[in-house]
């Protein structure tokens, strides 16, 4: 930036240049990068089809395995939501039994939050992108990484097997609140809930293995020159989310273990003295509130486990497709870290109506509203990145723009619900359903789509079909507003959530009934558009237009591999050397509108780049 700074760097570099190995042919002074600290990673080389594609230890393949499993499970969640919507729109048809409705609601919630979004963002995108973006050959512990995927698959299978046990899956709602979760009368209160709890425990164990990998790879296995503050924001989002997961999942694990014991052994951790079917149960003296605290100590960070990777990915998409550096990179990093830290101090805002002392509610309302500060910083910075950018309305950019709008919408309703006094009347209405679907359903899913359209060429070497993609985008974006905007209204007029049948009665406005039909039609259309997207994935992977190398002209390392899709070991013989951050777009003085991270300063002497 300033000549003085360059001189200082040059002087410093001249004194220490002997310590590092300087690639021959480049000017040694300004291109100084510290030498390798460690020998090249020892890799596992597969020899058979089974160890290459099935029991793969290559993070890229594991990422794809994670993604396919997660999306497959997510489709089941989608079908469940269709069934629920049909039941709500046409209660007279008797599509679902009440118990089936509760079972579907529970499975839909759990599948979408944990088995789709968490697994897809961290397991899928994390595995695919972390080693590539950090400039590593693979994850730090490839074997552990493989076990992590198989544990995830096992968790999914255990979860789905609960559809086939006597009594069916649990119908306790995704929050699994005791005592009703394990009391007779709740669907799946014997076998279903146990399978759910065991599945969650297996998921946590599997995720811990993967999460340790992501953290160590990012901290200990970066390329030469890749400082933490040069990492793409995607990495920062996934990193912080992983830290949250490693600290939040323990609470879920403990809650699950204790409830399993309550159910199988008859302990009374969460179960108070109760009368069921006219008989006093053997339970006595447990605290249902304890479970709520454990669950939400996991549950609230879980929201950010999904949101933070989405924040990171969207920052990268916006920057690349608006050809402009991300506004306030450091601020963005600190906002991610700050949101992550704050997310551990807000959990009881999910429990305002559980009978806590009002002083507690006051504390948690305050911390909840404080989170709005770093979140708003992020939204402003996205908008400022777009401002005067060279916006390309590519598919990833469309999804990114849709994300910002949707996230702001869901965030604003979050401010309503974060305040105790406003939350009490809105609690357990469709307003809550609309809020969390907007902010942690639709918004992250839009990021998932944007990310898939963006990185599909990296995985397959082909572009996704543009026309089908645009139909998919508009139907999904407008359709999800058609679904969730009316729900805000339904919440205001007091329609309760979790009712399996809403019919004409003095307590329900007539407009609600018509809206329910409208929402269901919209949901069916949006769901069908996802099938179009799946078709696009399969079709384009086989017969899509061949992508050129680095098709979006991005700067980050994943596009700079010698071959695309990247091969085993990612970077060929020599690992890349990094000289700059990932956001050098449209730098004044440079001859191209982007400067990849591996371009040394001596090659772009006249470019006025940011010092990172």
């Amino acid at each position: 930036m300033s000549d003085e700074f360059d001189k200082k760097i040059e002087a410093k570099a001249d004194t220490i240049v002997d310590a590092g190995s300087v690639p021959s042919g480049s000017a040694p002074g300004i291109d100084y990068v510290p030498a390798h600290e460690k020998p090249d990673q020892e890799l596992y080389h597969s020899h058979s089809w089974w160890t290459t594609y099935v029991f793969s230890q290559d993070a890229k393949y594991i990422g794809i395995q994670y993604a396919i499993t997660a999306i497959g499970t997510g489709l089941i969640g989608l079908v469940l939501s269709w069934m629920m919507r049909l039941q709500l729109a046409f209660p007279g048809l008797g599509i679902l039994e009440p118990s089936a409705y509760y079972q579907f609601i529970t499975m839909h919630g759990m599948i979408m939050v944990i088995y789709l979004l968490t697994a897809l963002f961290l397991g899928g995108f994390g595995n695919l992108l972390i080693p590539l973006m950090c400039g590593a050959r693979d994850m730090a512990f490839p074997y552990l990484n493989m076990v992590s995927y198989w544990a995830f698959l096992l968790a999914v299978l255990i979860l789905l097997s609960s559809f086939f046990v006597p009594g069916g899956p649990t119908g306790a709602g995704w929050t699994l609140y005791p005592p009703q979760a394990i009391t007779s009368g709740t669907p799946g209160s014997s076998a279903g809930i146990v399978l759910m709890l065991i599945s969650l425990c297996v998921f946590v164990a599997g995720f811990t293995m993967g999460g340790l990998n992501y953290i160590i790879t990012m901290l200990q296995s970066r390329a030469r020159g890749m400082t933490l503050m040069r990492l793409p924001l995607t990495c920062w989002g996934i990193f912080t989310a992983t830290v949250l997961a490693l600290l939040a999942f323990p609470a879920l694990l403990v809650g699950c273990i204790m409830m399993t014991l309550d159910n199988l052994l008859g302990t009374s951790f969460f179960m108070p003295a109760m009368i069921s079917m006219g008989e006093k149960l053997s339970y006595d003296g447990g605290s249902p509130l304890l479970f709520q605290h454990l669950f939400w100590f996991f549950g609230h960070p879980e929201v950010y486990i999904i949101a933070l990777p989405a924040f990171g990915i969207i920052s990268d998409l916006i920057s690349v497709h608006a050809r402009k550096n991300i506004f306030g990179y450091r601020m963005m990093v600190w906002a991610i870290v700050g949101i992550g830290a704050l997310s551990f101090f807000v959990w009881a805002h999910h429990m305002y109506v559980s009978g806590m002392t009002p002083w507690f509610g006051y504390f948690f309302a305050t911390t909840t509203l404080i989170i709005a500060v770093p979140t708003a910083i992020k939204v402003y910075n996205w908008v400022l990145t777009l401002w005067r950018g060279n916006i390309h309305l590519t598919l990833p950019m469309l999804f990114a723009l849709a994300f910002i709008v949707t996230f702001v919408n869901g965030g604003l309703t979050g401010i309503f619900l974060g305040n105790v006094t406003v939350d009490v009347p809105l609690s357990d209405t469709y307003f809550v359903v609309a809020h969390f679907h907007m902010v942690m359903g639709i918004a992250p899913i839009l990021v998932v789509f944007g990310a898939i359209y963006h990185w599909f060429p990296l995985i397959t070497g082909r572009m996704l079909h543009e026309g089908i993609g645009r139909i998919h985008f508009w139907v999904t974006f407008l359709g999800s507003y058609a679904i969730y905007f009316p729900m805000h209204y339904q919440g205001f007029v007091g329609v309760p959530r979790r009712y399996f049948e809403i019919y004409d009665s003095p307590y329900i406005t007539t407009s609600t009934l018509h809206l329910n039909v409208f929402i269901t039609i919209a949901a069916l259309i949006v769901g069908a558009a996802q099938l179009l997207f799946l078709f696009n994935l399969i079709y384009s992977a086989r017969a899509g237009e061949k992508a050129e190398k680095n098709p979006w002209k991005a700067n980050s390392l994943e596009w700079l591999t010698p071959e695309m899709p990247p091969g085993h070991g990612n970077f060929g013989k020599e690992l890349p050397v990094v000289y700059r951050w990932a956001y050098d777009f449209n730098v004044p003085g440079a001859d191209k509108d982007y400067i990849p991270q591996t371009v040394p300063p001596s090659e772009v002497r006249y470019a006025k780049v940011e010092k990172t």
Partner: protein
Amino acid sequence: MDQAALKKLPRGWKSIPSDLNSDQTAFKGVNWGKAMMWIFLLSDTFIFSCFLLSYMTGRGSTVLPWPNPSQVFALNFMGVPVPLLLIAIMTFVLITSSGTMAMAVKYGYEKNRKLCGTFLLLTALGGLTFVGMQAFEWSKLIFHEGVRPWSNPYGAPQFGSFFFMITGFHGTHVSIGVIFLFIFTRKVFRGDFDSGRKGYFTSMKSDYVAIEILGLYWHFVDLVWVFIFAFFYLW
């Protein structure tokens, strides 16, 4: 990073910004596995914290009297009930095994195969003794005193619930540690860590640092026991 390069790095508080601003690694010269174990232990700390906090909540909110630990856990010695006798021995054995583990790590880095393996074996035996005594304690509580996870003759049923769950979870940790200690003993005596023999599952080269990593886990399990000991037997 070699020792000479490590020595040139800033020390103390200054090392924090210097390490975090540097490239390649955030923990300079730290083995990946070792860093991973520390982070795993942090996560595991949260698990045990959740367990113990739940225990405190449960014990604090029950209306029934909580059994007196010095009575429940007493052992008859020469006809006299001695409170906490068994637990004192168990704790002593486990803490001692931490000492032998530290010796094993030291001799590992000195590439003293025989002493390293011997101390690992001693640690494993210490752990096994602990688990054995815990099994004895459990069976005494269950078969002689009628304590069950769902009820007990002394008072609040949550006493048995929390006791069996938390000591059971800790005992599982110890048992896993013992299994790995035996495996590592065999590996040390076979010379895997000297020859850099490839692991059966991971196919990665063996290194003496693995003993230190196992040591971290073992010390952690001992440290957790101190808390469990304090909260269950002394409170």
